């Protein structure tokens, strides 16, 4: 290297650098690196699970700090807002590795202990918004169906074109993880996941499954709609 003519060396280095940049620009990692990056994401999930505290609560805000409704985006993966053909027939199916599987009607869920909080929503895109959510703590529903000791994960499934999210059990049992049926003091609107959605201020927005259909306790790590495409599985804040 010492003997290498400086001008030629610099020219070569500049060319190599430019071509490396040229191929890297807007590049995702290709067929070789992308799977490796996703595998590495598992390491970050492991670290995230260790950083997660079952008792650390997300900060609550006064309702006056709410983001205006029009500024809080709602989204779904279906082309149109997912809607039930017969809302009255809707039941939340809670099953899997549990002693007492249950199909819960909305009025039954609303009759369960209620939690309400005004919290900050963190989207993976980088935006934040404050809203009030109300619902039943997930751990209350879990106590109802009595999960088996083998259950380590929870799979939340929706009627939004198969959208789903897999959760670790400790995150699901966090006191601020709720099955929400109200947004800003009103019944959940269709673009926010009516009639029932998962909500947690300790997870990124995409982990909070909307348009809930079924909750399944399982011993096998479930994937998820965005998670399977490369977004962090744990998604914890």
């Amino acid at each position, binding site marked *: 290297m010492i003997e290498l003519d400086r001008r030629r060396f610099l020219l070569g280095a500049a060319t190599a650098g430019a071509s490396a940049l040229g191929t890297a620009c807007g590049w995702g990692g290709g067929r070789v690196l992308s799977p490796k*990056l996703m595998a590495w994401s598992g390491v970050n999930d492991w670290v995230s699970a260790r*950083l997660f505290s079952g008792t650390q609560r997300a900060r609550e805000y006064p309702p006056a700090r709410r983001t205006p409704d029009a*500024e809080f985006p709602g989204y779904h993966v279906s082309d149109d807002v997912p809607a039930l053909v017969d809302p009255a027939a809707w039941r939340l199916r809670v099953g899997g590795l549990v002693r007492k599987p249950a199909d819960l009607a909305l009025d039954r869920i609303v009759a369960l202990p209620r939690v309400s909080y005004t919290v*900050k929503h*963190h989207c993976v*895109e980088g*935006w934040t918004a404050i809203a009030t959510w109300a619902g039943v703590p997930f751990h209350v529903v879990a106590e109802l169906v009595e999960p088996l000791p083998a259950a380590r994960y929870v799979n939340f499934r929706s009627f939004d074109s198969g959208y789903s999210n897999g959760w670790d059990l400790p995150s699901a049992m966090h006191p601020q993880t709720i099955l929400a049926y109200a947004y800003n003091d009103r019944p959940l609107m269709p673009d926010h996941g009516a009639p029932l959605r998962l909500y947690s201020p300790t997870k990124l927005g995409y982990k909070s499954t909307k348009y809930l259909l079924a909750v399944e306790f399982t011993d096998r790590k479930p994937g998820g709609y965005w998670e399977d495409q*490369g977004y962090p599985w744990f998604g*914890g804040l």
Partner: protein
Amino acid sequence: MPDEETAPDAGDPVAGESAQTGGASPPAAPSAEPVMSAPPSGPADAEEAAAPEAPTAGAERVVTETAESAVPTTRDAPTATAAPPFVRRHHWIVRLTHWVNTVVLVGMMASGLQIYNAYERFGIRGTKLPLPNPLDMHPVPRWARLGGWLAGGLSWHFFLMWPLVLNGLLYLGYLLFSGEWRPLLFRPRDVTPAIEMQKYYLRLRREHPPQGKHNALQKGAYSFIVVLGMLSVLTGLSLWKPVQLSWLTALFGGYELARYWHFVAVWLFAAFIAVHVILVFVVDPASLRAIITGWYRGRFPSHD
């Protein structure tokens, strides 16, 4: 880094003197300036001793690779035409961490800009942080991004953060254990020399102020960049875990501000890199070889 602007000035008193022969002693301190305290002489020590900082530094300093410093003449063979000899400048850990950092930092910035593209503004929804952002509502061009889409950018960013932090810790650990932090750390006593140095650059002062391994402005630049690195990592952590590390997020003024500082750091890094690279090529190209091979033969041999 700004010190390298002195290069064209052949009369630079600091650049002029050095351990060019591998055996010459740097001049005695011209004043009480501790950075110029008289070093022990001798071929093996000449380079290392060029900048003992604190009075005790000489004793604590871990002298590295002095054997190689002592025999630079063997490296002179190919260019023996009156050129100055090579001097040992960068330890292999410094060179390794420099280049790992180059690749990783560029990757972190490019993947970070990919992430920024998903929401190219600052402030909780419906509000706007009253802070300047040249890229407000502007997407980052494709050439500056890594990852292809948000998930790809996140994957790269959350992978590269590990080598970034480990590499940074290796560099700082090396500085700490070798004592090399002494000529790099900007301290209150460097303020006056920094002003003098700036005067010199502005031609308000004739003679180059006395200095050791680095001048006060260089110390400022190389200390600043470490602080900037720490700021990037800490704001990054506060954005990754704003609930579990809520105290850290609060320290930066909340999530939205932390995201802004994280972004400002990108511009500061970009500015530093631009000036850093420009000065290398314009002022002291020999330093490029030094950061690759460790051997330096240029106009600032005493600067190490």
